[in-house]
């Protein structure tokens, strides 16, 4: 039964605040806009009191206490800013600096670094405690993520995001004392770990210890190479976020500006991954209907989130037959670029350099999968750059995205529907599929295209839908730890679902590992995921067509090139398969 929480009143820095029982002092302070400094705090994920930056003085309580883990009590009198507290925190910062690789001028996180911010706030006069540096690792074995522990401040946000949100536990604490560091079990590299490349660790790292593996250099070269036809495709979620990197508010939709900016940078063609998403729906929905008819390999699980694919191959190899064999929208578009488009334009696919602008670090590993190689062993996508990397490239090329006028995608792979747009948020793939499944089954057009039950921030969302007069239960999950709950049920043969959408990242691609990094304090004041999702729903609402099967370009591609969804040619070009990956999984 719902019980109203008791309200507690306390005083922080001479100001009274009333909050529900169970709130921490830190959150109570934030409610009255007192920004107690933090480094390790991450709500519900990393509430550990490790970094000691949020220490406060509580009247009548011995010693300073970490406010991020101290629950409020009636009548507490708290000080956050005494001279002595400030000096203590300055000392902590000096100590952190003394064991931190201070190459801030060349650090990718410079100006968006929590440690740098705090050092500025606390005016560190001098580096007083320089000394031996702890043992450090530089691990660039993964295709997706680079770890440099010399910059790590051991806040453990990455460890707990990986463990609690993703259920992956690829990294943890190794060694003790001064030589403590974050590492992979048995001294292995990330490549050999359970890591799925999602990059949630990267976007939660307060410093520059975790970054995406950059392939920007190769892209610069390709753009400068006159013999290459350089094409970029843009993922659904990037249009809702890249504006942030240019000072625009969170949740600003910048599709047209983004296209304009990419054109300025020199791409020969700018295509939309959303078209690939629409085709994904055509294939996946058809596949789903086939499975329903045969009653085989149900529930079917979506397969566009590449972190999830790796997760399935590493943690649930026995359930690979549940995954839809449809390629991801990025790979479908990449394939179309090097087959359909190349043929149409009479370009040798080998002369095409196919780039994908993605909200995701895991996609960097997806493009090199053997299972996805095209005829002649070529890759459908040659390079993946993240939202953050592209923003940096635009800046170095003197392009201020925010000030540009809108431009349009190029033909013939630039048209998308609202269904494709919402792929970028949790529930979007499911919603897009539901808009088309009846049509694909028997040509019925549904009237209400908005499936609100599958939208929103809940970890696992369920809905009942009617397909051909039969009721089916479906589920949508975000964050791999949530996915595991559904997968365990499937493994035990107890799953009530017919169709499941799994997104690797909480919130879906709008909160992917390649997206702009929002400072934790700022993020505590706004709902970043909801605002970004809203931008995509806005794009959906104003789209000319909102169902994937209404995409005229897609129709034409099927007519001219592929034939039928799930047909022979479709299977050759638009579908893939999965293989078990052997890793050591901690039980």
């Amino acid at each position, binding site marked *: 039964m719902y019980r109203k929480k008791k309200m507690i009143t306390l005083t922080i820095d001479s100001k009274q605040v009333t909050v529900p029982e169970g709130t921490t002092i830190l959150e109570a302070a934030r409610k009255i806009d007192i920004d107690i400094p933090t480094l390790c705090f991450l709500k519900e994920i990393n509430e*550990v*009191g*490790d*970094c*000691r930056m949020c*220490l406060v003085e509580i009247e009548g309580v011995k*010693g*300073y206490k*970490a406010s991020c*883990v*101290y*629950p409020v009590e009636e009548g507490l009198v708290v000080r956050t800013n005494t001279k*002595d507290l400030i*000096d*203590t*925190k300055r*000392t*902590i910062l000096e*100590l*952190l600096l*003394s*064991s931190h690789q201070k190459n801030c001028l060349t650090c990718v996180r410079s100006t968006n670094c929590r440690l740098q911010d705090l050092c500025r706030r606390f005016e560190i006069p001098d580096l*007083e*405690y320089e*000394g*031996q540096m702890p043992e450090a690792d530089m691990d660039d074995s993964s295709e997706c993520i680079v770890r440099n522990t010399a910059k790590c*401040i*051991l806040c453990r946000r990455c460890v707990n995001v990986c463990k609690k949100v993703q259920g992956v536990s690829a990294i943890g*604490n190794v*060694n*003790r*004392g*001064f*030589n*403590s560091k974050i590492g992979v079990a048995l001294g292995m590299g990330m490549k050999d770990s359970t890591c799925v490349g999602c990059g949630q660790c990267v976007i939660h790292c307060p410093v520059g210890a975790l970054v995406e593996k950059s392939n920007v250099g190769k892209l610069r070269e390709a753009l400068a190479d006159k013999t290459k036809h350089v094409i970029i495709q843009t993922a659904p979620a990037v249009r809702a976020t890249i504006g942030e990197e240019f000072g625009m508010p969170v949740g600003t939709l910048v599709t047209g500006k983004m296209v304009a900016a990419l054109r300025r940078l020199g791409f020969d063609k700018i295509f939309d991954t959303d078209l690939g998403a629409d085709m994904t729906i055509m294939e996946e929905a058809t596949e789903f209907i086939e499975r329903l008819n045969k009653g085989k390999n149900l529930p079917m699980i979506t397969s566009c989130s590449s972190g999830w694919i790796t997760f399935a191959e590493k943690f649930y190899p026995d359930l690979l037959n549940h995954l839809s064999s449809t390629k991801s929208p990025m790979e479908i578009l990449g394939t179309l670029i090097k087959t359909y488009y190349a043929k149409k334009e009479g370009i040798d696919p080998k002369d095409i350099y196919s780039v994908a602008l993605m909200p995701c670090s895991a996609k960097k590993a997806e493009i090199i999968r053997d299972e996805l190689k095209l005829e002649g062993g070529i890759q459908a996508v040659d390079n993946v750059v993240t939202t953050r990397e592209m923003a940096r490239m635009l800046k170095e090329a003197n392009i201020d995205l925010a000030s540009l006028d809108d431009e349009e995608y190029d033909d013939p792979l630039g048209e998308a529907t609202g269904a494709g747009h919402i792929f970028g948020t949790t529930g979007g793939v499911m919603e897009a599929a539901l808009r088309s499944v009846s049509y694909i089954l028997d040509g019925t057009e549904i009237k209400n295209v908005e499936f609100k039950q599958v939208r929103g921030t809940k970890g696992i969302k369920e809905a009942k839908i009617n397909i051909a007069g039969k009721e089916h239960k479906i589920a949508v999950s975000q964050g791999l730890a949530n996915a595991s709950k559904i997968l365990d049920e499937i493994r035990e043969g107890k799953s009530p679902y017919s169709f499941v959408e799994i997104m690797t990242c909480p919130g879906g691609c709008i909160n992917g590992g390649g997206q702009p990094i929002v400072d934790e304090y700022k993020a505590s004041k706004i709902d970043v995921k909801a605002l970004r999702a809203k931008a995509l729903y806005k794009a959906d609402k104003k789209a000319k067509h909102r169902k994937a099967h209404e995409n005229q370009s897609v129709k034409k591609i099927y007519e001219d090139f592929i034939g039928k969804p799930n047909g022979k040619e479709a299977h050759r070009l638009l579908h893939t398969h999965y293989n078990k990956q052997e890793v050591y999984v901690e039980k």
Partner: protein
Amino acid sequence: MDIEKLNKIKDEYSKIIQKKRIMVCSGTGCTSSKSDVLLKNIQDKLEKDGIKNITAHKTGCFGFCAKGPIVVIDPDEIFYELVKPEDANDIVEAVINNKVVERLLVKENEKYVEKWHKLNFYSKQERIALKNCGKINPEKIEEYIALDGYQALYKALHMSRDEVIDVILNSGIRGRGGAGFPTGKKWKFAKEAKGDVKYVCCNADEGDPGAFMDRSILEGDPNAVLEAMAIAGYAIGAKQGYIYVRAEYPIAVKRLNIAIEQAKKLGLLGKNIFGKKFDFNIELRLGAGAFVCGEETALMNSIEGKRGEPRPRPPFPAVKGLFGKPTLLNNVETYANIPNIILKGANWYKSIGTKTSTGTKVFALGGNITNVGLVEVPMGTTLREIVYDIGGGIPEGKKFKAAQMGGPSGGCVPAKYLDVPIDYDSLNEIGAMMGSGGLIVMDDSKCMVDIAKFFLEFTVDESCGKCPPCRIGTKRMLEILTRITEGKGKDGDIEKLERLASNIKKASLCGLGQTAPNPVLSTLKYFRDEYEAHIYHKKCPAGVCKALTQVHIDEEKCKKCGICAKNCPVGAIEGQVGKVTFKINQDKCIKCGVCITKCPFKAISK
């Protein structure tokens, strides 16, 4: 098990333990000096001679470890020191003939002392926690029962839970593991905490260098801890106990296992103990050697199979402890006092010690002291009494300089406080702490900067690495101390140390970090001049820090014998035998001190 049965065992074994028995210390110290071979030799001799009315047994630590292996002949309490396996025959012969092996007796003031309680070492001691050590065979629960064992549990089970807690509260006993938190309060919090499942834990992760009282209690009287834990379980409403014991204590682990098995067999652990609706079981968990696992929350993490590192408090273990359940945690020595407190009452316990620190405390006496060992004295005994009356003073006629009390978390106590009565509060006032009772005596040949460095090295090694003040701060302090001892100290170093120390104490997450700077702060407080001599005059007054020490040959005393030059390992001494006085080349000298010890004329000094 019922009380009649318990009393029957008690009666039977009281008689047995009053017979002629040869008790051989089988603690870790004496065992490493072959007391196990000695015991076997004695038993073989008894068997060979067909003697039935005299028996030989292993027993717990007598505390007089400097004199081990120790053998006591009961019931006459004849005390033999430094006994070797080959002394077995003489001892047995003497017991048979009601005689004494004089050469094995302790000699005090030129006289042999026969009985152990007459020895100066024991004269000011009062053994409560160690009461059964040396008296019973710790591998026989019946002998523990003979000395009132498990009577306290019976008594407690016939009191209300609040009454039991009241006795503990009123006794005034405080935690013997470190911080000195009132034990009764802890029990009360744990009892009052809401929860279907609760746990009782015993902290046997004794990590202070030099401290071994917990080990000795577990080795000599494991049942006392089991009984106390069962009483605690009843009082707070727990059914399960865990003893977190160091894996480096194999004898203690073995005896605990034996004790648990025997207690289970007799129904003193298990279901419906003494016919009451009270079940209690105990399991061991072995620690892997991390000092920080002695910190209560780190210990619980370790029991849960997680990385041994502390958690923030609140929530306190009494509310949310092991496996998220209300948990009571006390250390071994605290538990060892409980059965006696229940049996004899709070007032009896309160009558011992001081007003705010009741009862006794066991200290592990070590360092530059004649009688190295374990001593148990009433709270309020002075350091002078412990060092000189019990400890026999400083060897080689050297002077007392300071005592490090409370291990690496404690502080050093200088000579001017020799007469301060030792209790929790007085030690805190002078910048030391009770800690687990490590007491390391230092004579005037010790360099206090070097000592502070030594203890800090330990904490730097043992920091878990969770919070930055401890992880990085202690390391930076150590670096400063190291450069001071290497003659590279700079103006401002003392102030830097003080600022770091004060902030590490304030900002660290757990007790390890919060107390790590204590050895530096206390030596800075009492021996600041030594720090200054190192930094500003580039001298180590005690002659310990090699970089700051020079070895000289007194020309007037030198007889040109050349022995020094012959023994110098690096050829740093030049001269001509019989002709030219010898001189030390300071560039080559490694300050090993060999020449000083070899010179027959005491012509060389630092």
